[in-house]
């Protein structure tokens, strides 16, 4: 349905080019991602003076019910970007989870139900593939821990682009199936994500493909800013006090910050300090380790965790995530695989949201921060849930209950009901209330 919505705004681009985040060297807005001078990452630069003049709360609200309502802040020129209904996911006030944790004002930004492939990656891919089409690519590709693969394959199918996907060979079955169904060519690489990424970096420029997370990275990563814009808009055009988000490469975390800052810069929200806290799995926590040790550099690690979607041992934006958490008086914490499973269950049982391992990591870290007194109970806190639990069922297999198998007879049902109540009582005795 969103396809039918006409974009009436001007086709003129609001971005002016690419700029190195480290040394400031400027480049044309082409398919390049690193600075030739210093290898720093390239960022999209915008004409904020123009945005300040042309964008209002009303003009945003009059736009489509998707990330493209923020089109002026995204690096595309097309009159008709690829709009598959991505974004504008629920911001849920999580009262039951808040009470359980002992805080007062908690919100869940629920990208477990983002469209079309149930993770935040649909945001970045919608932007990357729109830009890929503008740059003349007919084939797109990615290196992925699963969610990005799902999203790239699905949106490429919708846009009629040829698609090649590279994944580690040990991914969860749901993530592999959720890619294959769209009929891309899938390369399952013997190795971890960092090795897949290295291979793709070597492939990237040899076949003339648009790799969403490599040569299209400056455009791709801008899509994550919409997670900042939406939360600000959904809170009634205000910024929260504290956000908690998962850290893999660190890109999402820094782009939420950029989104908030841009809204302040163009006058859409009032400025205020927002604390940024990051979540990692203990089995892959290079950024959390650097934070704990007070280092300003990241030492890569070899991942070993059930949280495969965030198992990046060599995080490209790790140093920026580290700086951001320190600068905003936030924290970066890690949790064990068991705590991640408990986090998935806690969110499901209190709020009715089934998230994947990355979300379990975020909830477990949120809990840990509250228990350590690192989240003020009165702060408006937003936890970002970035993926869906149906894709990583292996992670909770054996940790959830089983159905009572019964005969189609009343007495069979009554016996099972009695048994379930007994089990419930036993469970309650174990929980300290």
């Amino acid at each position, binding site marked *: 349905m969103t396809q039918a919505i006409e974009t009436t705004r001007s086709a003129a681009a609001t971005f002016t080019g690419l700029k190195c985040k480290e040394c400031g060297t400027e480049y044309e807005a082409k398919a390049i991602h690193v600075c030739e*001078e210093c290898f720093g*990452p390239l960022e999209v630069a915008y004409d904020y003076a123009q945005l300040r003049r042309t964008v209002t709360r009303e003009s945003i609200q009059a736009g489509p019910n998707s990330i493209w309502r923020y089109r002026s802040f995204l690096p595309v020129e097309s009159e008709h970007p690829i709009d598959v209904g991505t974004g504008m996911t629920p911001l849920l006030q999580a009262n039951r989870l808040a009470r359980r944790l002992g805080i007062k004002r908690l919100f869940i930004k629920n990208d477990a139900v983002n469209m079309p492939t149930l993770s935040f990656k649909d945001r970045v891919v919608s932007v990357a593939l729109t830009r890929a089409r503008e740059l003349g690519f007919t084939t797109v590709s990615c290196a992925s821990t699963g969610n990005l693969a799902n999203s790239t394959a699905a949106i490429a199918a919708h846009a009629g682009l040829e698609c090649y996907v590279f994944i580690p060979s040990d991914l969860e079955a749901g993530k592999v199936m959720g890619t294959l169904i769209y009929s891309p060519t899938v390369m399952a690489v013997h190795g971890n994500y960092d090795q897949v990424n290295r291979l793709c970096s070597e492939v990237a420029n040899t076949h003339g493909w648009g790799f969403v997370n490599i040569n299209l990275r400056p455009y791709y990563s801008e899509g994550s800013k919409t997670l900042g814009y939406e939360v600000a808009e959904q809170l009634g055009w205000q910024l929260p006090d504290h956000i908690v988000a998962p850290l893999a490469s660190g890109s999402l975390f820094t782009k939420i910050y950029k989104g908030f800052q841009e809204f302040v810069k163009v006058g859409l929200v009032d400025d205020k300090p927002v604390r940024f806290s990051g979540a990692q799995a203990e089995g892959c926590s290079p950024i959390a380790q650097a934070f704990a040790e007070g280092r300003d550099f990241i030492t*890569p690690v070899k991942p070993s965790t059930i949280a495969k979607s965030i198992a990046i041992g060599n995080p490209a934006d790790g140093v920026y995530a580290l700086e951001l958490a320190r600068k905003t008086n936030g924290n970066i914490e890690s949790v064990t695989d068991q705590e991640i499973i408990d986090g998935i269950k806690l969110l499901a049982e209190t709020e009715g949201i089934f998230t994947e391992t990355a979300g379990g990591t975020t909830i477990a870290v949120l809990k840990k921060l509250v228990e350590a007194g690192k989240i003020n109970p009165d702060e408006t806190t937003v936890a970002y849930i970035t993926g869906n639990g149906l894709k990583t069922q292996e992670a909770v297999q054996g940790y959830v209950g089983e159905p009572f198998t019964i005969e189609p007879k009343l007495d069979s049902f009554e016996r099972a009901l009695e048994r379930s109540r007994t089990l419930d009582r036993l469970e309650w005795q174990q929980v300290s209330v």
Partner: protein
Amino acid sequence: MAVKVLIPTPLQKFTRDQAAIECNGGNISELLDSLEQGFPGIKARLCDDQGELRRFINFYVNSEDIRFLEGKNTALNEGDEVSIVPAVAGG
């Protein structure tokens, strides 16, 4: 020690558009000097003013990140493959 070095796109203008070159060096430090001899200017792109490898560059010897080996002192053997790869995001 003759080793094969894979050159990332941003540096290929130094290597006359070659994506792979043969080079010599007993370890990564020596390899960097040898690269600079063959392709003047390339070392300054890879190392900062203190001579340390820039933080957004990854070096791999036979697919292993040199930070898991001996860093710049990682020894090179005849026929090894060295990849120079800029950091990339994703997930």
